[in-house]
């Protein structure tokens, strides 16, 4: 059916045709052992990262990973196995292990490959592989510059957790016994810095980073260092707050976490287990009517872009939330069958989920909030998707008359996600592009802030 992506990636340990042959070999062995259907994925990844601290190299770490995984179905019984060993004997053992497991699992009416009609028939070229020819020496130099630019910002920056440069590329091929085989190469590069500032007895750290598929789209190294520095210094002289109920702004990078909670709550696995506070919510308003979100899987060079999902299903742009109303769930084939629905091409997750801005800058949002909290970091795992109970540690800034007054720390933020989502007042245009969930800052209704 589908063709291997046309763009041949060079510089990999294995060419994509070799990985494809392994997939075909695995599928053949699986059916040879009596499996009624099977699927396999093979990948190889390479790259390196350097870290520099106080101007000196700390680590140079080379990565070379490969792996293969197979899932076999005997009727509706399923078994999986994986290995990092590509030797024929290891592949044979792995396929056999998957088949052995399938003898003991129970028949599950929802299990199986994706429906043939959903599989991708064309593989769009998404330009996900953009190699970076940087040498380790050059990478070290970039990291040194990044950290130096940070240290230069303020004398109170006395220490560092280091600056890093990392560059990785990989190839992945997926195939199944319905005749689908597809593969593509991708790359990911990042640069970041974490600094420490001290004053009196207080120490604070913060960081900044850039991440992209294309090295030319990484933020300037000096700018990253300076942002890390500014963020760190701004945290000094942090105060505690008294317990209160105030409106809150989640800065763009923290608001991504809220999107993550939404994604989990409307994902198939959570829904069919009835482990979500958003059961049966399709067609219902979950946000105010000016909020919309859409999934854009085919953005060129997008960090979450994918021509097909991890079961070969074609990915499609779609609206997830329109006019505040949930339009669909995030489903793979298994969960879709459980729920009596169709897969949405989300085996493996969402692909570039964007929240539309309501147009304001972060400054506008501060003015609109007038008095409350700007949250720049959250801590801990206090999010219960079953009930929507939300309680997390936080850091940020106290805001009065629309202006930042002073940093605050050692507080918690608590609420119910369902109410928090409905209470979103505005989405900023200060969009954070780093990653799969893309949004500006969120101005929220009143939340409970616990402090001293």
């Amino acid at each position: 059916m589908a063709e291997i992506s046309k763009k041949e990636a060079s510089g990999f340990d294995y060419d994509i045709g070799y990985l494809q042959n392994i997939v075909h070999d695995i599928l053949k062995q699986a059916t040879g052992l009596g499996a009624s259907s099977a699927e396999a994925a093979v990948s190889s990844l390479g790259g390196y990262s350097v870290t520099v601290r106080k101007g000196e190299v700390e680590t140079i770490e080379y990565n070379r990973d490969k792996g293969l995984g197979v899932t076999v179905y005997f009727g509706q019984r399923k078994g999986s196995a994986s290995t990092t060993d590509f030797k024929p004997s290891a592949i044979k053992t792995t396929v056999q292990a998957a088949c052995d497991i399938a003898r003991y699992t129970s028949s599950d009416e929802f299990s199986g490959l994706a429906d043939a009609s959903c599989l991708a028939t064309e593989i769009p070229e998404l330009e996900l592989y953009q190699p970076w020819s940087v040498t380790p020496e050059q990478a070290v130099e970039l990291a040194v510059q990044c950290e130096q630019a940070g240290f230069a910002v303020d004398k109170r920056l006395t220490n560092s957790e280091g600056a890093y440069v990392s560059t990785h590329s990989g190839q992945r091929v997926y195939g199944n016994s319905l005749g689908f085989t597809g593969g593509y190469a991708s790359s990911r590069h990042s640069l970041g810095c974490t600094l420490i500032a001290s004053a009196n007895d207080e120490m604070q750290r913060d960081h900044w980073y850039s991440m992209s598929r294309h090295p030319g789209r990484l933020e300037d190294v000096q700018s990253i260092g300076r942002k890390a520095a500014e963020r760190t210094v701004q945290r000094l002289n942090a105060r505690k707050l008294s317990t209160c109920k105030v409106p809150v702004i989640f800065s763009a990078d923290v608001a991504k976490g809220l999107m993550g909670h939404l994604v989990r709550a409307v994902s198939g696995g959570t829904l069919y287990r009835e482990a979500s506070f958003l059961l049966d919510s399709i067609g219902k308003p979950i946000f105010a009517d000016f909020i919309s979100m859409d999934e854009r899987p085919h953005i060129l060079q997008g960090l979450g872009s994918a021509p097909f999902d991890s079961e070969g299903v074609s990915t499609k742009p779609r609206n997830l939330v329109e006019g505040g109303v949930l339009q669909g769930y995030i489903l793979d084939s298994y969960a879709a069958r459980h729920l009596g629905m169709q897969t949405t091409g989300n085996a493996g997750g969402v692909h570039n989920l964007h929240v539309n801005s309501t147009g304001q800058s972060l400054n506008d949002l501060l003015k609109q909030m007038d008095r409350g909290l700007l949250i720049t970091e959250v801590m801990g795992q206090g999010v219960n998707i079953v009930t929507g109970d939300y309680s997390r540690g936080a850091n940020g800034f106290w805001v009065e008359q629309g202006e930042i007054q002073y940093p605050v720390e050692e507080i918690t933020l608590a609420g119910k996600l369902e109410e928090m989502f409905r209470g979103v007042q505005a989405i900023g245009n200060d969009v954070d592009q780093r990653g799969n969930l893309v949004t500006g800052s969120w101005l929220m209704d009143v939340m409970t802030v616990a402090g001293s």
Partner: protein
Amino acid sequence: MNHSSLDIAEDLLLVPAGMGDSDLQSVLGQLMSHQIDYADLYFQSSQHESWMLENGIVKEGSFNIEQGVGVRAVSGEKTGFAYSDEIILPALTQAASTARVIARSGQQGGVKAWSNSSSHHLYLASNPIQTFSADDKVALLQAVDAEARRQDSRVSQVMASLAGVYEVILIAATDGTLAADIRPLVRMSVTVIAEQDGRREQGSSGGGGRYSFDYFQQQERSLDYAREAVRQALVNLEAVDAPAGAMPVVLGPGWPGVLLHEAVGHGLEGDFNRKGSSVFSGRLGQQVASPLCTVVDEGSIADRRGSLNIDDEGTPTGQTVLIEKGILKTYLQDKLNARLMNMPLTGNGRRESYAHLPMPRMTNTYMQSGEHDPEEIIASVDKGIYAVNFGGGQVDITSGKFVFSTSEAYLIEKGKITRPVRGATLIGNGPEVMQKISLVGNDMALDTGVGVCGKEGQSVPVGVGQPSLLIDELTVGGTG
């Protein structure tokens, strides 16, 4: 067991590649000739098997087999690292030449002759995956499902998983280390959802350690996990909003020791203290906790999830007193940081796998028992909360701020436990909170064996423990 771990490891990891001790010596020698202070080779073979039950049936099982070798070269504070997922001499030599790019300066050193240090035998040196048939594993999970559903008709979902790991490692280093360890690890997890009048709540339980699977059958442990998960879910069905603000907090024994892991444990890891990035940096000998607190990291407890015969650098594990009667005594070390700080090794150099660099990590971290009866501790509180189960925690080691989130907690009113409260995050500053521990119970317990600790993207199994204790004031992040 007459066959030593080292023989078993060499047979499994080196012999198939036609390699022997002399090859290890020669690769290390090649590394040292490039002016490296220290270098090591970490060979690993692992098998991982897991089974998952949901909707009353075991619907998934998976098996993973992996092996590889990591090569590390250290020069001063610099580390070069490369690895290969093939254990063959050419791949090893190539990884070694990649790892040593780091060295441009440093002292000339030689490879020391292997020195055999005696090591512990804290757990079985066998493969747990093979000790139980697939039928028995499936039956174990089905019994858990039946037991959970039998407890209460409000139980609407039961999810259970069973996992076994068999890992064999071998370490050869230029300081003369040649050591091996055989590490079994099993774990069972049970999560249930209970439903009443449209309200759904979750409860979870589980346990494990360096055992074979029959551990779960003994003393009805697996059935106890099911009962415990149901009990928690039913308690949470009755939970009211947690209070918000600073108040006294009583922590129960065992798993609430997550407190120590976050409030002090990470902050006492050698790497952060060498770099001066921890709130505990430069505070050795100082009072960092109330005099009631003695906190220990002990990798050498038999059979525990966080235990190791040797750490991932070949150093035998032991008991390290971190805080004694409130005084900071030492840090947790790996070889790199111990050498740079001129401090003793503690057997805490750990890594997730051959493809990751070792760093100082906790093993089993706990507080020793005090003198108070747990009932007395609760009775001493006029208004506060009593927290007995937690999800997880997180710490910012630089500012000292840490959080941990309750999954089962109650209000204390006038010295009595009254109503359960919804999950809430507790937040504090490590050294400040440790100073506010005013009562310590006589009921020290270790957790059941479910902990996973993450640091710089690497996960390792750990244990925690503590007696019941009272913190005079901690911020509780409820909504009430």
